[in-house]
């Protein structure tokens, strides 16, 4: 139900052509700009051995702002734009399921962008993704765990958004921007200053992107070379479980604070 609503909201605001442009070209352009910058700056350009990893990382990272901002933005959208959060809250609906459902529409649009990006990389830029060599079971496990992980991040941010009165429209995108730097998307983790690299290593998204690199390219980055595929998946699963506890507790705490301060139906932006 929430996913249907999310899709209506995502796709209904403009004609299909404009929607396609906005939904696909924007993330693609954003990712490709950095890929081409890398290609120009790196010594061997597109032939650099690091390039495929950077490309796949950029492609898969499209999911991160889409799902994080998609879920956390629902709080603002429903509370302050549509004025419906209070009615959702007074209904006997599971708020987590509702928020994740609203994020699904964003994830679907992001999936199309990711697939196009990977096709472009494979067909036009020489990124060595070989369908025959892909471990589909590993991809499926990574996708499932990744979906759960990003949804939980989104819920955690949704909690923050709920108790942030003003300027909260940027929370999801600002966090995604920070993660872009810290998760080894554009710079491999071992090239970052030690403290930034250490921060990147405690963020589960870094491991998730690494798993995708291994699944699609057959190899990952130096930073996680010591981890086997099984250990990598175990780390993602474990950190997702920890994140689940943090997200649920964090959101419930924010919800309680929002009820105490009367923020569930507050309007600050519109």
């Amino acid at each position, binding site marked *: 139900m929430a996913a249907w609503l999310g899709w*209506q909201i995502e796709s209904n605001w403009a004609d299909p052509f404009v929607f396609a442009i906005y939904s696909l070209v924007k993330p693609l352009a954003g990712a490709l700009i950095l890929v081409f910058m890398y290609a120009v700056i790196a010594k061997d350009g597109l032939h650099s051995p690091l390039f495929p990893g950077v490309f796949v990382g950029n492609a898969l990272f499209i999911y991160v702002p889409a799902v994080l901002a998609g879920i956390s933005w629902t709080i603002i959208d429903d509370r302050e734009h*549509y004025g419906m959060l*209070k009615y959702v809250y007074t209904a006997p609906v599971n708020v987590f399921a509702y928020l994740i459902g609203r994020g699904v529409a964003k994830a679907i649009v992001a999936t199309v962008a990711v697939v196009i990006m990977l096709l472009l990389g494979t067909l036009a830029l020489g990124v060595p993704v070989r369908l025959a060599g892909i471990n589909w079971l590993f991809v499926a496990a990574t996708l499932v765990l990744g979906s759960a992980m990003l949804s939980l991040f989104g819920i955690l941010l949704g909690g923050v958004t709920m108790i942030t009165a003003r300027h909260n429209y940027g929370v999801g995108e600002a966090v995604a921007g920070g993660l872009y730097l810290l998760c080894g998307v554009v710079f491999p983790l071992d090239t970052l200053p030690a403290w930034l690299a250490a921060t990147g290593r405690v963020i589960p998204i870094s491991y998730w992107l690494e798993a995708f690199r291994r699944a699609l390219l057959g190899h990952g980055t130096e930073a996680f070379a010591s981890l086997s595929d099984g250990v990598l998946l175990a780390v993602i699963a474990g950190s997702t479980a920890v994140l689940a506890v943090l997200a649920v507790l964090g959101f419930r705490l924010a919800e309680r604070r929002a*009820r105490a301060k*009367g923020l569930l139906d507050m309007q600050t932006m519109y």
Partner: protein
Amino acid sequence: MMSDCYAIRTEDLRRVFRAKRREAKKQKREVVALDGVSFSVGSGELFGVLGPNGAGKTTTIKILATLLSPTAGRAWVAGIDVAKDPKRVRRHIGMVSGGETSGYGLLTIEENLWMFSQFYGLDTRVARARIKELLEVVGLADRSRTKIYHLSTGMRQKMNFVRGFLTEPEILFLDEPTLGLDVQTAHTLRGFVSNWLAEHRDRTILLTTHAMHEADELCGRVAIIDKGRILACDAPATLKRELQRDAIFRLRIADLADARGVVGTSPDVTQFTQTASEAGVDVDAILTHDGALTQLLASVEAAGGRLLSLEKREPTLEDVFLHIVGHGFEDEIREGGSA
């Protein structure tokens, strides 16, 4: 402590809003919205909470609908503590707030309502039949496929009204449901509320309003609230009966510059309100006895006023409010009470 025989019950409910430090420099640090509110509503009742803007009506509904925590005191809805178990409370309630433009603008009226029916687990066929029936009632049947962003504020309000009744909740909170609606629509909706409750005798409605006639027409009992305190709570007829020993007059006076000074200083006028009209000023005055009218009219004449009309009235809920609080609703609104 709480028995299940009440649909709604509050006990010493208190809610204080605290301003942020930087805002506190410009305004009061604390605003007491509710100050020890206690009442109970039996199953099947249509209970009204009547008061001017800023009296605490909406705050009461927000607490009961689990949107706001009380600062102190307790409240139960369907026998469940709203602070301790809000999730369970939500299975029993519905809410409609008047005077707002909420709704998913990109969905049609029908889609909006159907989606909410699904949140409550209503069978789609039942939901569609009820949507059709209720849209007929509010006069939106021919707009069911119109997207919300094309609707006027009044139409959105009607849609929200339908949303509240669609799931036939056990306990329904109506917060100023006719606010901003035209007279005819408001009348239709009031009729619908009455009939709905007559057909669903196990349901309970808590209605907040500042429209006296609405409370008088609909409610079995009303609580009169002002500045966060309940000042009286009884059936409208009982409340009005207590005033029948007093003499209540409406005077229309022209050329009277200082009505407040003249009427307010008359010794036998216990309470009064004044409303500006095209002809001059309309004064509703409660006198200690009929004979005091002569003295009042003499004072008006001495101050240069011309009496245009005079009417002796039966007491209304507004008179009850005036009698209890010491000022009318309009005075309160003019003086800036609009929280």
